[in-house]
């Protein structure tokens, strides 16, 4: 029983990190990305590749995955952000599609559709994270670290610049804020930390394949952020917990046939998104106002 709960807890930590990082650009910067699962995937594949072929040192893998995801995101952000919001949505959707194709086809690096198996557990200063309990501790510590980084950035001047840009770009520019640099940097931070979540995932599952990084995952992450509440620190965590608990909760409703659980689940969060946007755009934690309260 304990092992089962630990399993759920680790996956919750990973999802919470992803939701937090997505909220960083969606809620605070007003940048809409549909490619978050790809940055997650890039981090996971990087860690897997390094662990299988080079080294299983935790620090190196985290650093490499964060760096790669961040660089990739900047490639996307630089051209798209200088135009309009919708362009970034389109570009991120494009990245999501191309990313899945590359994950499936670049067989020498990603293992193609078969994925990579047998990833060894990570090592930090000689200690191997072999047991479930030690891994949970690691995941939780990283979650706290990401939460801390996000809080620091948001409450500092960087965060204020972000929110100024979100609320009115032209005004922010008039005040001397380097709009493009700030936006690109925020996307890089968000993607880099998503890459770290990917490292956690790869080491935990010992197996990565493209099925964990598809459009459905990006949509699920978006739902977590929106339902929990954009522009709040704890909203995404609430969202992650809720959406993870939803499938299990639904099994207790006797009138729903087993085979339709997945669709009912999606209908619920689709409806939640529509209704929340109509009446409570701040999400569950945020409330009526969509304006941040950091």
């Amino acid at each position, binding site marked *: *029983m*304990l*092992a*089962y709960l630990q*399993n*759920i807890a680790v*996956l919750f930590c990973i999802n919470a990190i992803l939701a937090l990082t997505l909220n960083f650009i969606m809620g605070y910067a007003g940048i809409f990305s549909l490619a978050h699962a790809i940055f997650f995937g890039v981090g996971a594949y990087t860690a897997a590749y390094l662990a299988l072929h080079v080294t299983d040192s935790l620090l190196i893998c985290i650093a490499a995955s964060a760096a790669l995801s961040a660089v990739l995101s900047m490639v996307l952000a630089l051209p798209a952000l200088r135009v309009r919001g919708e362009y970034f949505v389109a570009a991120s959707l494009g990245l999501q599609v191309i990313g899945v*194709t590359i994950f*499936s*086809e670049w*067989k020498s690096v990603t293992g*193609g*559709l*078969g*994925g990579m*198996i*047998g990833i060894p557990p990570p090592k930090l200063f000689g200690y191997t994270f072999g047991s479930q309990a030690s891994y949970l501790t690691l995941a939780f510590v990283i979650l706290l670290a990401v939460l801390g980084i996000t809080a620091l950035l948001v409450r500092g001047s960087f965060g204020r610049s972000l929110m100024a840009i979100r609320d009115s770009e032209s005004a922010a520019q008039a005040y001397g804020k380097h709009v493009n640099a700030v936006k690109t940097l925020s996307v890089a931070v968000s993607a880099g930390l998503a890459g770290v979540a990917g490292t956690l995932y790869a080491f935990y*599952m*010992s*197996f990565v*394949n493209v*099925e*964990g990084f598809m459009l459905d995952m990006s949509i699920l992450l978006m739902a977590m952020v929106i339902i929990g509440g954009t522009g709040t620190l704890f909203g995404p965590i609430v969202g992650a917990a809720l959406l993870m608990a939803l*499938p299990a909760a639904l099994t207790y409703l006797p009138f729903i046939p*087993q*085979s*339709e*659980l*997945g*669709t009912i*689940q999606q209908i619920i969060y689709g409806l939640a998104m529509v209704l929340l946007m109509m009446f409570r755009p701040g999400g569950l934690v945020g409330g009526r106002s969509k304006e941040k309260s950091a």
Partner: protein
Amino acid sequence: MKKLLAALVLAQASIAAPALAADYNIGAAFPLSGPNAEYGQVFSSGVNLAVEHINADKKLKNKLNVVYEDSQALPTQGVIAANKLINVTKTPYVLSAFTGVSKAIAPLGQRNKVVMVNGGGVGPDLASLGEYFWNTIPLANFEVRTMAPFLVKEKGYKRIALVYVDDPLGQAIVKELGTELKAAGGELVGSFSIPTTAQQFSGIAARVRDTKPDAVYIASYGNQQVQLIKQLRDNGVSQPLASYSAFAIPSVLALPESKGAYYTSQLVNWDKNDPLTKRMLEDYKKKYNKEPNMYVLNYYNAVLTFAELAAALEKAGKPVTGENLLAQRKATKNFEFVGATVSFADDGTVKSPIQVNQIEDGGKSKIVSAAK
């Protein structure tokens, strides 16, 4: 504080203790929801029928139960499902489905010494997932070794074009088909890979036509096959089609454009008059109003395997754990499966004779080449 701890420990113990201590529980991590839920239903029908028969025959001292968990055919969900089965239900034997899920949960089985059995996926990568991962369905590369000489030597189709999904299964088939065709005196004149989500095949059809093949081999699965067959025919590919056992699903068999297509499958002698085969066939038809397909068969056999091994362990007075099941399997030479007798190789795969079938009208197939 102490009281709280005590209460928690008590609560955990009572949840963890299996409700029916004397029963045998086997687990199944199937897609119960999501886009592949229909497969989950098909697999479960085979499993449930086997459990029914085993309990009716009183093959085991205790009652046999199966506990289902939803994998949604996705690796992460599969891991959650397998974790629940191993750590909460505490089962020594788990049925798995879908290659991605199997690969993700195999390490859990290895670590916890729990047997995991696949009855659906046929990719060669399923053979290398460790000692505790078994397959009751022969893997696809064997099927190609029967189809290639059949096409070239018996039918005279020398030039074969291949359309395949670019995953380990497809890649294995490209390799096997290339070598086997050459060995038989034929040639692989073109191989075209398609993504798993593709639905539009007019371009592929044009390229296939361009290679002027005598026959076309398809390596895909599920609903995509239906679209592929229909659109190949719609777009001027009139050559005979061939494939492996994935063709044996109702939607493909019933499609008018599939008529005449050849496919290999493991030897199942439905006319074998032994009581095991007969009863399975009759009961399935009675319950579900249709003939059982390969997937039903393989999961039925997977449950049979457990029953046989557990019965042997009971006789020897050993507890039914994953470790003992593995040892017992290694010590057992043959297994009486429905329709055939098979043996497990050391890597946990089954060797089974392969037959070639041809699709006829009304969704039926006839055997055109007996198994070798």
